[in-house]
């Protein structure tokens, strides 16, 4: 029983990690309808920047979160404006996906070029210490991630509901052509959305770096799971992504213990296929999964 509770706690904390990474992806996937294979590489870039900031400037990783959010926002804006936007009207809708694949390849190898294949561990700065509650333990850094996940989801939710820009984004997500007719500048909305999605990754990077060491391929470890989370939660749904992440975290934790560590991904991807087939809108989806 004690083990089970600890497994659930671990699963929820892992879910917090998936959540903070998936929030940005669900925005990009849900609103721009883009499978962004370079999402994990944005995380990787952010983690290397965090490492640089902590080791070269001696800053606490969390202090780096605001500048990282800004930097990643700019990177996201540039990617959407100069790589993806020109492909919006391409004859084949798939070319955007391949542009992100190329981008992902380029970024991974850029990291390999600059930093080499070794791991770069950001100093833990105290966030890898654990809090104990009786027999149970939680990592401070994971708790922070969990809370930040809730805060980000809440803040973005308010932004989407309360601001004109947020409403324009939602309108675009629901019906691109209609929004355009209503005078929404869809291209600008896409640029901003991608920027916000990337900015979320900036925050995630600052929080994840002290817990996982950076390496050129660290992003690929997370990105497929993040897609599972996004589809489970329903594309474009922020709280859906959060709850989806917690569920996947729990499934990961429990199936690794009760089934086998090398089969937990089979369980996760199997679940993913079932969701796609039987409820493609996800748990809280805005859009229609079959389109």
């Amino acid at each position: 029983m004690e083990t089970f509770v600890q497994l659930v706690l671990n699963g929820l904390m892992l879910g917090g990690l998936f959540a903070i990474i998936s929030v940005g992806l669900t925005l990009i996937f849900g609103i721009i309808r883009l499978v962004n294979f370079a999402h994990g590489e944005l995380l990787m870039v952010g983690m290397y920047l965090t490492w640089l900031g902590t080791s070269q400037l001696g800053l606490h990783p969390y202090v780096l979160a605001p500048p990282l959010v800004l930097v990643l926002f700019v990177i996201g804006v540039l990617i959407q404006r100069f790589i993806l936007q020109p492909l919006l009207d391409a004859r084949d809708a798939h070319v955007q996906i391949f542009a992100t694949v190329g981008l992902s390849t380029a970024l991974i190898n850029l990291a390999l070029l600059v930093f080499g294949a070794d791991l770069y561990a950001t100093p833990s700065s105290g966030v890898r210490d654990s809090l104990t509650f009786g027999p149970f333990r939680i990592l401070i850094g994971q708790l922070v991630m969990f809370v930040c996940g809730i805060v980000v989801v809440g803040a973005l939710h308010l932004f989407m509901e309360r601001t004109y820009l947020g409403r324009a984004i939602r309108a675009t997500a629901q019906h691109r052509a209609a929004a355009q007719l209503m005078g929404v500048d869809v291209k600008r909305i896409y640029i901003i959305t991608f920027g916000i999605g990337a900015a979320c990754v900036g925050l995630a990077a600052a929080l994840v770096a002290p817990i996982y060491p950076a390496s050129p391929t660290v992003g690929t470890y997370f990105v497929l799971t993040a897609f599972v989370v996004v589809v489970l939660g329903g594309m474009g749904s922020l709280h859906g992504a959060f709850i989806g992440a917690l569920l996947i975290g729990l499934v990961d934790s429990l199936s690794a213990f009760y089934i086998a560590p090398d089969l937990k991904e089979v369980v996760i991807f199997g679940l993913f296929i079932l969701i796609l087939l039987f409820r493609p809108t996800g748990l809280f989806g805005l859009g229609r999964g079959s389109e």
Partner: protein
Amino acid sequence: MFRTTRRVALGLLAGLGIGLGAGAAQAEIRLGALYPFSGELAVLGDESWRGLELAVEERNAAGGIKGEKITLVRGDAVDNNQAVAEARRLISVAQVKAIFGTYSSARSQVASQVAELARIPYFEMGAVSDSITERKFRYLFRTNPTARNMAERSIEMVVNSVAPAFSVEPKALRIAIIHEDSLYGTTVGRFQASYAKERGLTIVETLPYPANIVDMSSLILRLQAAKADVVLQTSYQNDTVLFFRQAREANFRPRAIIGGGGGYSLRETMQAVGPEVMDGVLNVDFTQYAINPKAAPGIEDFVAAYRAKYGMEPRSGHSLGNYVGAKVFLDAIAAAKSLAADDIRAAVAAVDVPDGTTPEGWGVKFGPDGQNERAKMMGLQWQDGRLVTVYPPEAAVSELRLRR
């Protein structure tokens, strides 16, 4: 794959050159060097290449083979199909007399097959998968120890070192085997399980996991639930770091942890995990540099030569292993009646280097399958931020330390 017009043109020119210059005496012997020089395996592929390069330079300085200089032709085996391509190119375009390699087991599997069909000797000095030599190829030889040797050594250390250190019967130790599930971890893990069973040890868990795992907390909870005393892990860097961090966070403290090379031998792993956490951790790997020079004569000269050429300390034991292997093969080629494949083969098959006479510590004697029967792995331990040799006793530079 396609080396494009440039490569093809070069190949054509080379072919032409050989045609024209056939009358003139050949002033060099070409040998192929096939390693992953790009891609993810490039760091250790390059480290392996340095050992071969040093051995060849040493030989050339001493007059080459049969009075002729040796030229190494590099081939980049970045993936399986590419390994075939480069083996082909080395054989047909560069016309090498033999191929040396390969570090990666999968690349070795496919490239050695090409050489075998072309009847060109293939000398393996780094790939650990046992199945490479299980095919009983005629022209394939391997000097380095294999996954089987690694597993054997780790179980031996459990029985001969760990159990006595805690004054318990080996059977009383509860052993857990965890390994990443690619070729390397799977092979070692499987042999560990079978040797442990042979020795009558108690295995409480055997858990493979994907190398790109992001969370090992459940795996660690399973080890805790199984009350594992000794953990044998075969892993790369990322999963080694993750295991140590999450084990510490879960307050899981087995009596001994024995790694299987890979991530356990890297300085960066120790730094990422923290020297105090890594202290006392055991490891089994190729011969490393902190070894008793009496057991590995010539190792100091190698390190000096390495420093002189590359201006840095060796990055891992791979260069040493390739250096020793290459020297053995070059000596054999020099002793061969001619450079015909069958003469080289006969000379290599006749090699007999006793134990304790090479910088690796072990000797060389090839079995009928081409595997060096004298190859052994070393038992190592992280002590005060250094990876030192602790087993076998004659090679040890330090006593085994285990906390009680």
